[in-house]
């Protein structure tokens, strides 16, 4: 029996390994030149500050399993179903067959250009959370003019919970990511003023709330409840922001040396294409719809096609890996069933 997995991010890698261990043949397709997906862009992970690349290395290492064939730099151009088998045509000419198809196409980050009022791509010192991770990787935090920032603001919910961008959903991880990044920033910039502008702090995972408390007490991060309305730039290339402190109930104006946009999650373009090719339904939040929110979280409206990871909803890495293992189990059950 063989399973075709599309997407070799953390979900795809983990599911591939679990299925391979169970004796299934796995064809793992990845459009990029290397596996890892969005994990490649991260420096450290919450809540334990584990190195993202260390986790990535462990996941990739397990792809050397003899039952896994990895197709890098490949994209499906056609997906057919013949006599209960899936035939996936790749852009390099290969034709893969399998009894089950697992979609692990993941998410993509919200394109911050769409929120033009925050000035991303227009003001020099507006960056996204991913770019900040990149700064951490290079251990260089500086403004566009080459100075150490004295005041840094994190803007939560950019492209999440925002009717204007048609994204009603909560991306779940940006809150805790902002807390993590603020702490990392404090370690590099002990003197700087660091602020987070939030709507709600959604600390859903184990250890998250504790991190949030520590960020306030130990790391002196200031949390301001209020959404940013707009930003502009002054001659010194600082970002002037307008917001409202909704706890005090007063409008607020401030200059930031560096503004970090906590961009939300959306269904990736690749996942969207796969959904269109295979007829998988999308939920109202734009992610792929699972068959049942309790009992069939990896199944879809298409028999034999399964989902793993953040293509079905925003997930942190813990949940992504758990979901991948759950998908592997579900697929094994399914294969046993069609065997009979």
């Amino acid at each position, binding site marked *: 029996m063989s399973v075709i997995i599309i997407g070799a991010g953390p979900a795809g890698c983990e599911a591939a390994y679990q299925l391979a261990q169970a004796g299934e043949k796995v064809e793992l397709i990845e459009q990029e030149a290397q596996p890892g997906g969005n994990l490649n862009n991260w420096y450290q992970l919450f809540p334990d500050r584990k190195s993202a690349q260390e986790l990535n290395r462990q996941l990739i290492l397990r792809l050397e399993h003899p039952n896994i064939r990895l197709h890098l730099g490949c994209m499906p151009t056609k997906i057919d179903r013949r006599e209960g088998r899936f035939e996936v045509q790749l852009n390099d000419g290969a034709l893969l067959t399998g009894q089950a198809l697992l979609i692990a196409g993941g998410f993509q980050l919200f*394109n911050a*250009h*769409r929120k*033009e*009022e925050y*000035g991303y791509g*227009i*003001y020099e010192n507006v960056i996204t959370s991913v770019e900040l991770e990149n700064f951490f990787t290079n251990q260089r935090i500086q403004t566009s003019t080459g100075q150490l920032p004295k005041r840094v603001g994190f803007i939560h919910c950019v492209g999440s919970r925002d*009717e*204007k*961008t*048609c994204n*009603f959903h909560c991306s779940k991880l940006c809150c805790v990511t902002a807390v993590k990044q603020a702490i990392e920033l404090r370690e590099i910039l002990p003197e700087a003023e660091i602020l987070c502008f939030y709507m709600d702090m959604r600390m859903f995972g184990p250890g998250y709330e504790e991190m949030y408390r520590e960020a306030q007490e130990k790391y002196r991060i200031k949390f301001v409840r209020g959404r940013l309305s*707009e*930003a*502009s*730039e002054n001659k010194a290339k600082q970002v002037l922001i*307008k917001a409202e402190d909704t706890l005090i109930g007063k*409008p607020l104006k401030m200059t930031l040396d560096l503004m970090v946009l906590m961009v939300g999650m959306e269904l990736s373009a690749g996942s969207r294409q796969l959904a269109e090719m295979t007829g998988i339904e999308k939920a*109202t939040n734009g992610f792929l719809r699972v068959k049942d929110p309790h009992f069939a979280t990896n199944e879809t409206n298409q028999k034999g096609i399964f989902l793993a990871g953040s293509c079905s909803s925003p997930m942190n890495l813990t949940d992504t890996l758990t979901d991948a293992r759950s998908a592997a189990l579900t697929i094994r059950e399914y294969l046993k069933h069609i065997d009979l």
Partner: protein
Amino acid sequence: MYYDPFVLPFTLGLNILLIYLIIKYARWIRTFSTEDRQTIRRNIFTLKTWKAGKEVFLESLVHHKIFRINPFLGYMHLCFGLGWFLLIVIGKIESLVYHTSIFNPPYFAIFFRYFHPAKETFPGSNVFAFFMDLILLMILSGLLLAWLKRLYSKALGLKRTTRHRPFDLLILTVLWLIFPLRFLAESFTSGLRGGGSFLTHTAGDFFNSFLPIEQLSYPAWWAYSSALGLFFLLLPFSRYMHIPTEIVYIFLKNWEVRQGKHFSGISQFQLYSCSRCGICIDRCQLGSSLGMTDTQPVYFLKKLRHGKEHSILVDNCLMCGRCEAACPVDLRLNALRLTQRQEDIRITKSTYEYIRPAAAKTTAKVAYFAGCMGHLTPGVIRSMQSIFHKAGVDYTFIDEGGSICCGRPMMLSGNHHTAAIIQEKNKASLEASGAELLVTSCPICYKTFKEDYRLDMQVLHHTEYLDILLREGALHPHCSDITTVFHNPCELGRGCQVYTAPEHILQTISHRIATAYEGKDALCCGGSLANLHISPQQRLQLAEDALNAYAAYRPDVLVTACPLCKKTFSQPGSSLPVQDIAELVDGQC
């Protein structure tokens, strides 16, 4: 004295109709404000009345605007409008030539073939007979097209035709019966006594060969007269009320009686002037993109007129003005819908007390106002600042530190009182700058500044201003191969009639690709502030469809001139880059 009892249904119907119309119109006109009455008195004895007469001929009779939509559809309306008119006028002249008595009642001309002994000729009687037959033939050919339109509207250039009430279908049948009955009555009489011309005479001979026309002729005249009488009696309660009302409306419009914020006498005239032709249906993107086919003006006005529930229809309109631009009767459809939106927000002058007093007077002659939407697209502000710098313009950025809304969104939601408070606050700060020229980046602000604010300075949208700078040579565009398609924002194009400036700019700095959506036919981006009903997902769908329509021309850039359009178009995540015209000009100069 010529008389026969069969003329009674026609005569009664016509007289009752005329009395009804006089009472109805007098009542509406009585509700006109003193201001409106003064306007009418001022304009009635001017060329405007002549212009109105010309418009009545062109629109009510020839229907020349409908020809632009589809020649067959135009011809169909021309047959009924001009055809019927000529039938009455030439018939009247014919009857006067024959019998020049002043006691020539209206029915004498209408039923002339019945009363006129065919053998008795009079000057030009053959020519008259020929023309009367020709006109009748023309109307009958139009009738054929009308049938075809009911069966298959696409043949006449309409994807969808109006869904009518059963009552309107009844009167439609009566109308359709009138001309075939006239044809039969005249043919039978001609077959019996001679007379008529190529149509009725030939048909008369033909019918005579196999029908007992002697028995049929008199009943046919009764039927014709009854159909006319019934049509006149039903007319006030049907959509055909538009026939007389439209004429009055055209005069009132030309005398500059304006549709105000509230439902008034002129609104009544407009309401009854809607012919329910259904041309607005295909123009509406809520229909073409979202399948909402019950909210178009034709249905809204119908519900309003007949007192049916219409609260959703009031809110569900983009007010993009695409329907208004195509309306053959030239009704103020947006303003009419707006009269039905209720005030629901209460603010007082103290609400805006927190706003700091206006900035001190500057020496700059040009004041730049980005507007609150403009502040959501800092890229546009930046480009304008750069352009001012390149052109060496001394300017002041009056809302650099922010401002309050111009009030137009409030106005569009029916909150005129709130809008007035906002306007007052804004006006003070705009005029405090002391500038001579106000340049704004937002067409929404632009429209209200121009129409409602009565500022003591000139107001231009940046599109117009950039055009002036380019024409004066203050900016120096370099050669460019970039291809562009222009999306004219609703508030700028149809809203403020700014059409040539953006066209000229794009021709100067790029290769402008002409599309099917030029000028008044521009699409709505879907971001409209005026629609209070649709969901964000539906807006996204509108934006996607509009983007795809423009993308089909494969431009390098889709250019617009409104911060709201730009933002709306950036949401679907299309591969087609969208820029404001200011950003393009800045990049090319």
